[in-house]
């Protein structure tokens, strides 16, 4: 499942709720990743951030990533939740999770979800620093 959220969300609560849908005893592995807003970036303090997206395409693209993960690995399910709009330091920005029988698939799929999202999903961050607003120029390759 994929979801966009315009307000703060608790990724651990979301995982707990979502996981109840899955068949008990069938998955042995859940790898998940939570990205949250730091109060610093590239040496500057960041007091606020705005996340713009492309309504329609963003949702469609996140679903594509989930579908691709399901094709590549034997998953029971996967989940992506992503914030949009105004974000404060320490807010959760993204949650990706993958459930499978064995750990290898859940790790690989969870990593795939976040990497594809970071490099291909239409989201754009604008940071508010002491020096004013600035667009984040580019996500790094698998290291950000």
């Amino acid at each position, binding site marked *: 499942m994929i979801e966009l959220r315009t307000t703060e969300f608790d990724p651990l609560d979301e995982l707990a709720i979502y996981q109840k849908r899955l068949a008990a005893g069938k998955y042995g592995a859940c790898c998940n990743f939570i990205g949250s807003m730091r109060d610093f970036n590239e040496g500057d303090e960041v007091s606020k951030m705005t996340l713009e997206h492309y309504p329609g395409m963003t949702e469609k693209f996140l679903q594509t990533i989930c579908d691709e993960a399901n094709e590549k690995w034997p998953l029971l399910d996967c989940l992506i939740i*992503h914030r949009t709009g105004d974000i404060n330091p320490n807010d959760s920005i993204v949650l990706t999770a993958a459930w499978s029988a064995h750990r290898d698939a859940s790790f690989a799929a969870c990593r795939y979800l976040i990497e594809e999202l970071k490099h*291909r*999903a*239409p989201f*754009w961050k604008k940071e508010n620093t002491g020096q004013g607003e600035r667009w984040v120029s580019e*996500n790094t390759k698998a290291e950000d």
Partner: protein
Amino acid sequence: MNITVKFFASLREQTGKSDASISYAEPISVLDAWKQASGMQSMPENTLCAINMEYVNHSTLLSDGDEVAFFPPVTGG
């Protein structure tokens, strides 16, 4: 041939618009649509393009009724 054009993030600010409609008699490419809708501004080198919410490259030709979008490298997550 009518086309809807969308600009996002820094390109929305650069062009000063989020949406535009353009009309053409002959088939045009994504790059042609940029030129027309942006008022002949130069396109930043790393600009990404989508037609009807699917990634395409700058030389892809547009069809009547298409929605073409321009945006900078993505920075979500």
